[in-house]
C-alpha cells in the first residue's frame, strides 16, 4: 500500500521546484504554497525519490497519516510517553505502599510496643501493604503475644496511611483495694439510688445529704469497732437542685439563607487551606467535600451558601422558651453519663421593655459520690444519718 504524506520543501521558488519535481516524475496529489515553503501531498516512495534527487533542498515530512503518523508521533513524544508510563507505574506502586503508620493510642508505651510488634511482622513505613488475611493473622499474633497488655487491635488502610486502632487491657490493680478511702457527697442532694461495690453504706435512699458528707465508708466495722479498712466504691445518684437566672432580650439576631450558591476549590498544604478562586459572597456558610487526599496534601470541593443576617422581635412566650432552653443547655453541659434533668419550673418572671428576666428551678439526677482519700468521720456521720432517718 502506498502511504501518502505531506512533504515540506524549503524553497522560495515555487514554480521552479514544481518543474524539477515534474522532471524527476513525482506525482503530486495536492500542493500548497507558503511564504518560504512548498507543501506537497505525495507518496512516501516519491518523498524518498525527492530526497534522493533534490539533495540541495531541505525536505522533510510535514504531516502523515495512519501507522506512519502514529510512529512519527511516538518518536516525537517518546520522552513524554515514557515519563507518563513511568509516573503511572510509580503512582500504582506508591498506592500499594504504606507511607505513614498512625497508632491511635494516648500512651507512649503502647505506641512504642505496637511499633516494635508491627516491625516484627514487616509492617513499617515504605513497605508494601499486606492483604486482609495476612493482617488478620498478624493481629491475632500480636494480641496473643501481648495478651496482658492489649485487649483489642484493628489494623486498616486509609489511602497510604496504616491506621492502628488499639484498646489497652484494663488491669484492676489489687493495690488499690489496700488504699483507704470514702465516698463523700460532692453536692447537697437527696439520694435517689445507691449501688454499693465496696465499703459500708452510711446513708440510705431518700436521705438528704450535705456537701462533704460521707455516703459510703471504707471502714469495715463490727460491734462499733473497726475491723478492717478498704477503699469504698459505689455509685450514689441524688436529686440535685439548681436555680438558674437568665435574661433574654426580645430582639433576636438570626440568619436567613438566600438561594445564591457558589462553588470553589481549595487545597490544603501542611494544615493551611488556600482557596483557588476568590469568593464573591460576603456572608457565607461553607460545606467541604474532600476530592483527593495524600498525606498532608488535600484537594477540596467547596459549596458556599450565602446568608444574610436579620433581626426579629420575639413574643413573651418565645423569649421565655428560649430562656428555659438556654438554662437547660447550660445544666446539660454539667451532666455526665446516666445523669439527666428530672424537672424544671419557672420561679420568677419579670418583663422589661427590651428583655425578660427569668429564675428557673431545675432538678437533676446526678452521681453525687466522689472518692475521698483516707477514712474519717465514720461514727459521727453514721450516727447523724441514723438520727436523721429516725
Amino acid at each position, binding site marked *: 500500500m502506498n502511504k501518502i504524506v505531506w512533504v515540506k520543501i524549503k524553497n522560495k521558488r515555487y*514554480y521552479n521546484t514544481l518543474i524539477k519535481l*515534474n522532471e524527476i516524475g513525482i506525482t*503530486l496529489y*495536492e500542493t500548497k504554497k507558503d511564504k518560504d515553503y512548498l507543501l506537497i501531498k505525495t507518496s512516501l516512495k516519491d518523498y524518498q525519490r525527492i530526497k534522493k534527487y533534490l539533495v540541495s533542498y531541505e525536505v522533510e515530512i510535514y504531516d502523515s497519516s495512519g501507522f506512519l503518523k502514529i510512529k512519527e508521533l511516538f518518536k516525537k513524544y517518546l520522552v513524554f510517553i515514557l515519563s507518563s508510563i513511568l509516573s503511572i507505574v510509580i503512582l500504582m506502586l506508591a498506592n500499594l505502599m504504606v507511607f505513614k503508620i498512625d497508632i491511635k493510642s494516648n500512651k507512649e508505651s503502647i505506641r512504642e510496643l505496637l511499633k516494635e510488634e508491627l516491625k516484627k511482622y514487616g509492617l513499617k513505613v515504605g513497605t508494601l501493604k499486606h492483604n486482609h488475611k495476612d493482617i488478620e493473622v498478624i493481629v491475632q499474633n500480636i494480641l496473643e503475644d501481648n495478651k496482658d497488655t492489649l485487649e483489642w487491635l484493628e489494623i486498616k488502610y486509609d489511602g497510604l496511611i496504616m491506621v492502628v486502632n488499639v484498646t489497652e487491657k484494663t488491669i484492676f490493680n489489687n493495690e488499690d483495694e489496700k488504699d483507704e478511702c470514702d465516698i463523700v457527697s460532692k453536692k447537697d442532694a437527696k439520694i435517689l439510688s445507691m449501688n454499693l461495690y465496696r465499703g459500708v453504706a452510711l446513708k440510705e435512699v431518700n436521705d438528704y445529704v450535705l456537701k462533704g458528707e460521707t455516703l459510703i465508708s471504707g471502714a469495715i466495722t463490727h460491734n462499733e469497732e473497726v475491723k478492717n479498712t478498704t477503699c469504698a466504691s459505689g455509685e450514689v445518684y441524688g436529686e440535685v437542685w439548681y436555680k438558674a437566672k437568665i435574661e433574654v432580650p426580645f430582639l433576636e439576631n438570626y440568619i436567613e439563607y438566600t438561594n445564591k450558591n457558589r462553588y470553589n476549590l481549595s487545597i490544603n498544604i501542611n494544615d493551611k487551606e488556600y482557596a483557588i478562586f476568590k469568593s464573591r459572597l460576603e456572608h457565607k456558610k461553607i460545606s467541604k467535600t474532600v476530592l483527593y487526599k495524600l498525606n498532608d496534601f488535600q484537594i477540596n470541593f467547596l459549596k458556599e451558601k450565602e446568608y444574610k443576617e436579620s433581626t426579629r422581635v420575639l413574643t413573651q412566650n418565645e423569649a421565655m422558651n428560649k430562656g428555659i432552653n438556654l438554662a437547660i443547655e447550660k445544666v446539660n453541659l454539667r451532666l455526665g453519663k446516666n445523669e439527666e434533668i428530672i424537672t424544671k419550673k419557672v420561679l420568677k418572671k419579670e418583663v422589661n421593655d427590651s428583655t425578660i428576666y427569668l429564675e428557673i428551678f431545675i432538678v437533676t439526677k446526678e452521681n453525687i459520690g466522689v472518692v475521698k482519700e483516707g477514712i474519717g468521720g465514720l461514727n459521727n456521720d453514721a450516727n447523724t444519718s441514723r438520727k436523721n432517718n429516725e
Partner: protein
Amino acid sequence: MKNLHFKSYMENFLYDLNNFITIYDDTLHVFNFNKLNKLSDTEIILKIGFKLVLIEGKNLRVSKMTKQELLINGDIFKVEFKNE
C-alpha cells in the same frame, strides 16, 4: 505467456486521443504532455508532441501533477498552440 494488457486496451478505448486539453471555468486539465518547459503564476509552457502549448492567465497554480498529466487552477485567459 503473452500479457493481455487489459489496462492499456481500456485506456485506448476511453482515450482514443494521444493527448488532450480540457478547460473548465478556472481549471485546465492537460493529458499526456511531454515536458513542462515553463511554469509561473501567469504563464505555463508545455510541450505536447511537436507543438508547444502556451497557457496565459493569473494566479496560476498547480493543484495536481503526474509525469504526464497536469491540473492547473487559476484565471485562464488564453491557450495557444505554437510550432516548435
